[in-house]
């Protein structure tokens, strides 16, 4: 396994890019600190401490209420942005983005692209680490300078001098390690997993494996959502077909942009018109080849709207893509030499045939090559 980790700071902080460079503490009153910016570390603020204590330590910080929904949206955005760079991508709210680049032909390009996309999505240069597993990659990234990559060839050697409090254990377990004299990961690695398990339970076994660089944890691959839609509500009900077409085109543009970001295609298209009599009319179709661009989406939806005759003025237009193509097929950049695109090219040719007729696309096969009549030479 070869894992690249990008550290950007907690995604809660990315909600307020205007506060970058100033001390920020995220949390609810009477609860714990959810996230704190790097600028608060010098005052002793830590994630998980009581907010009252954090306020006492760093009163000049800006206190922001957490918004889990907005953070989840940012996580989805970052995951979607990184999706086509590695077969397995996992992004966590703590601002950790892991990419398993094992087997990726152009790993260097993927890492460079990951840096740029994280910078674009979060607004800050990520710290990057490349190591044999997610744990060592995260620790490597934490020690890299912003915008730089720290490579780790031998995880055990890299982890050995690091403090044992880097292990994912609770405070009590960490204190026990300290009492046992196991203050570095190297010291923890010398203890067998079973011995540590007898001291700390199951977490002890995992900690021993992590300290040895054996990486027992697997990444949880992000899967793009399989449904998307866009809609527009009209202030005044619309009767004009041109206006509907105009809005439909704009919605197709939005959807195509979203599909492009996810690297997906629509296998089914549904258009719903909500009309004045609080009724609705709809039309839907399963398409033979996934649609992903504005031209493809509007080609179909526009043709429906052109012949649609709603019973009453339209109050709302919905375009829904209830079935998106299985995402795995669209990670095209990961294929070496463009091999993975063959299926896409064949689908594209069939789309051209559907639009302009079978005869437009022709695969010449030798028939009577010696014939003096050109049309007979190839089938």
């Amino acid at each position, binding site marked *: 396994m070869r894992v690249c980790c990008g550290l950007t700071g907690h995604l809660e902080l990315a909600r307020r890019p205007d506060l970058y460079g100033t001390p920020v503490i995220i949390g609810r009153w009477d609860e714990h600190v959810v996230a704190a910016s790097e600028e608060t570390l010098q005052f002793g603020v830590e994630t998980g401490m009581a907010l009252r204590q954090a306020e006492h330590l760093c009163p000049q910080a800006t206190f922001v209420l957490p918004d889990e929904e907005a953070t989840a949206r940012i996580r989805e955005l970052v995951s979607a942005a990184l999706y086509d760079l590695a077969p397995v991508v996992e992004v966590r709210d703590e601002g950790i983005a892991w990419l398993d680049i094992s087997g990726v032909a152009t790993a260097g390009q993927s890492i460079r692209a990951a840096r740029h996309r994280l910078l674009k999505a979060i607004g800050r240069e990520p710290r990057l680490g490349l190591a044999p597993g997610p744990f060592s990659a995260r620790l490597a990234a934490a020690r890299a300078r912003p915008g730089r990559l720290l490579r780790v060839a031998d995880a055990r050697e890299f982890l050995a001098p690091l403090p044992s409090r880097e292990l994912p254990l609770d405070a009590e377990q960490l204190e026990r390690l300290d009492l046992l004299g196991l203050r570095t990961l190297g010291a923890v690695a010398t203890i067998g997993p079973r011995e540590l398990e007898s001291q700390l339970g199951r977490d002890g076994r995992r900690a021993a494996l992590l300290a040895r660089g054996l990486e027992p944890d697997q990444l949880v691959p992000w899967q793009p959502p399989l449904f998307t839609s866009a809609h527009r509500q009209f202030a005044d009900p619309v009767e004009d077909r041109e206006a509907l077409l105009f809005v439909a085109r704009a919605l197709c543009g939005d959807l195509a942009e979203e599909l492009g970001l996810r690297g997906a295609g629509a296998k089914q298209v549904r258009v719903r018109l909500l009309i004045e009599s609080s009724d609705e009319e709809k039309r839907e179709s399963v398409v033979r080849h996934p649609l992903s*661009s504005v*031209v493809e989406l509007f080609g179909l939806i526009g043709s429906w709207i052109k012949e649609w005759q709603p019973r009453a003025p339209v109050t709302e237009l919905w375009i829904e893509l209830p079935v998106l193509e299985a995402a795995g097929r669209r990670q*095209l950049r990961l294929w070496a030499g*463009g*091999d*993975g*695109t*063959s299926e*896409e*090219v064949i*689908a*594209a*040719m069939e*789309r*051209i045939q559907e*639009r*302009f007729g079978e*005869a*437009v*696309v*022709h*695969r*010449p*096969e*030798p028939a009577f*090559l010696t014939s003096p009549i*050109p049309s007979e*030479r*190839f089938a």
Partner: protein
Amino acid sequence: MQAQNLQLDGAIDAIRLRFGSHALTRAAELPSPQPWPSRTPIDSLTGIGGLPRGRLSLLTGSGTCGKLSLALALLAHATHEFAHATVIDGGGFDPWNLLPFSPELSALTVVRAPAPEIAGEAAATLARAGAGFILLMSEVPEHWLGPIESGANRSGTVLVGVVDAPGRALAHASSFSLALSRTEWVWERGQLIGIQVMARCLKNRVAPPLGETALEIRYPLGARPPSDHLVHVIEAHVDVQEVAQCVSAVV
């Protein structure tokens, strides 16, 4: 010459000072696209050792200058290298002409585009889908050049266009443009066996432009079966003149 260089450096510094350091970049400093080695002498003219992937390359010149022979040689080679080599044909392509170049016909697809609009849409769709090589032998409307360029750029498609004289939009969209002109016919024992061609680099956005080279294109001769035919595109005598310094403005 010294004074001119000084003046030029002064002008470059002034532009950079006013519009930023990225307003004017030396072509040698630009990140070059991945090359596709076509194994023809034009590789040495691109400056990156092959035709640029994801960019449009143009072969231009008046009739019987050898541009189509060169394009067919590229296409035949592409059929061996890529799963899909496509010709967007406006009505003049006959696969028969390709046979002397020993193509792999199973990888060849011809899109017969009766109208430029169809040619544009087909080229953009195939470039976006990731066809390995596209030979454009048809006019393409200006508004399709952007989607073709971006699609090819995304997928790394090698795009080659063959035109007598490119329009302004096509010339602008191209990253590498080669002008071919016939210098003389090649005769042997009273029989026409090929042409000598001067290939001159008109535009190069992927590397500092190199000057020109002489090519000799041999036609297939005799009544041999097509599989035995082989058209040679060889470099007659390499005469590549390197331009000392080239400055390219990045907009």
